[in-house]
């Protein structure tokens, strides 16, 4: 067992090296940030449909919700499987395994560093949005902001765990990324990214809420945009799903590593 001080030092080193690495690819990250405009496009369609006002949403609430969903999406993007797949297939994972550190932490730190690199680009995009229509932005209360950021980070961890689980399939199959693409479909349509959950028919809404997906977008976006939200239920759902997924990931890692047969293993 490592002392807390040593862990802190490792975390700091990992984060700072990954941040430096990500800064080198800032142009690429700016493009990735641009590719997250889907919620804003959907806002355009929803504004011209009366369906949201039927669900009791005011035009301002609708705008804020989708802008919040855009922010949530920006900071909960997970691309672990694409990197991990290549590292497994090409054997780059082997040297990481020699180090006295669980390799997944390295990927986790890379994601955090990428988020930090994204901040200025997202801020610029928000600035551009406010230039188009100042009504798109709002000022959340400090309490809502903190709670929302916490939920956003929880959503990221949940997404990371879910993708860790599908990444473990890389040890068995070369098509793991294709399988993960299938998981994106329920995420897209059930999380509230393209349509607010309030507009769903009750049965579909109940079904969606039983999956982990609404906790990934709907819950943090509602908190940030100041819409009425079930605070306890949202955090509980995040916690429960994380608790379900973590042991599964651990188990997958243990089993997968035994299968791992790339160069040097």
């Amino acid at each position, binding site marked *: 067992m490592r002392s807390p001080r040593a862990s802190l030092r490792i975390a700091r080193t990992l984060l700072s090296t990954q941040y430096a690495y990500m800064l080198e*690819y800032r*142009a*690429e990250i700016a*493009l*990735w940030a*641009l*590719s*997250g*405009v*889907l919620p804003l*496009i959907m806002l*355009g*369609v*929803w*504004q*011209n*449909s*009366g*369906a949201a006002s*039927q669900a009791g949403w005011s035009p301002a609430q609708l705008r804020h919700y989708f802008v919040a969903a855009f922010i949530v999406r920006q900071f909960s993007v997970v691309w672990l499987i694409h990197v991990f797949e290549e590292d497994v297939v090409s054997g780059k994972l082997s040297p990481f395994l020699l180090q006295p550190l669980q390799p997944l932490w390295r990927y986790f730190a890379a994601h955090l560093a990428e988020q930090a690199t994204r901040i200025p680009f997202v801020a610029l995009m928000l600035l551009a949005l406010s230039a*188009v229509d100042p009504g798109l932005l709002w000022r959340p209360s400090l309490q809502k902001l903190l709670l929302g950021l916490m939920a956003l980070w929880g959503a990221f961890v949940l997404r990371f765990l879910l993708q860790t689980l599908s990444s473990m399939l890389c040890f068995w199959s070369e*098509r793991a990324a*294709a*399988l993960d*693409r*299938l998981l994106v*479909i*329920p995420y*897209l*349509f059930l999380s509230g990214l*393209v*349509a607010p959950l309030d*507009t*769903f028919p009750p049965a*579909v809404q109940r079904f969606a809420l039983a999956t982990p997906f609404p906790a990934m977008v709907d819950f943090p976006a509602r908190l940030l945009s100041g819409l009425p939200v079930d605070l306890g239920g949202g955090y509980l759902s995040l916690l429960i799903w994380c608790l379900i997924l973590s042991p599964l990931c651990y188990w997958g890692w243990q089993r997968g590593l035994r299968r791992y047969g790339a160069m040097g293993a």
Partner: protein
Amino acid sequence: MRRSKTLAMLLQFWRSSLESESEYQLNLVLECLSVFGNLAGSLFVLSLLFSGQSTLGGWTWNEALIVLGLYTLLDGFTSCLLQPNLSKIVNHVQQGTLDFVLLKPVDSQLWLSLRCFSPWGAPGLLAGCVLVVLGLPEIRPQSLLLGGLLLASGAAILYSLWFSLAALSIWFVKVWNATEVLRYTLVAGRYPVSAYPPALRLVFVFVLPVAFMTTVPSQALLGQGSWHWALGSVLMAAGSLIASRLFWQFALRHYTSASS
């Protein structure tokens, strides 16, 4: 003589890529699941947008189905031809294998754009056609012809945009993402352009011409096409094809190859 040679070569290319792709049969299942999952989700969202009203931006449910169908069709076209070919340009530049392509006695743009053919876009093509047929109230040969022509123009615009973006990799090697951005923003074509606020409509006509890819051909299929939109679409397609050609020649002049 020359033309038939090119055609024979293309057929040979596609036969060989079909053979190599047929090794991955699991892909067909995954691709079908992906297309139908996405389609079910899109239909669900469309039904939400229509709840409590009979039109969306002046389009009825059936008419909106045609737009969605054409989007699915173009998405299938993307998976069949654009994605497998154009996403490799970046690799060619990065690894220096573009030199080999340039040395071949074939037009380099033709080779880079049509070398591979992936059968995995077929479910999308099929599903798109089914949606269009479901949405059409009556099939008139005249509007079918015009719609087909405008869809082809839309596909040409899509190709030119994608190819030009991929050609940027001559200068910026890590440009693969730019095509991903394109793919994500083209999602806007799932809905008729008039469903968007006026400012976005202008963007979708002039900056990112999704209007010409799905909305304009749909109107033509419905027999509501107007000649100036049709003319605009064909002109835009011709213009963007020529522009992509010129841009590629310009890019090649800046290509310094791997060994020099």
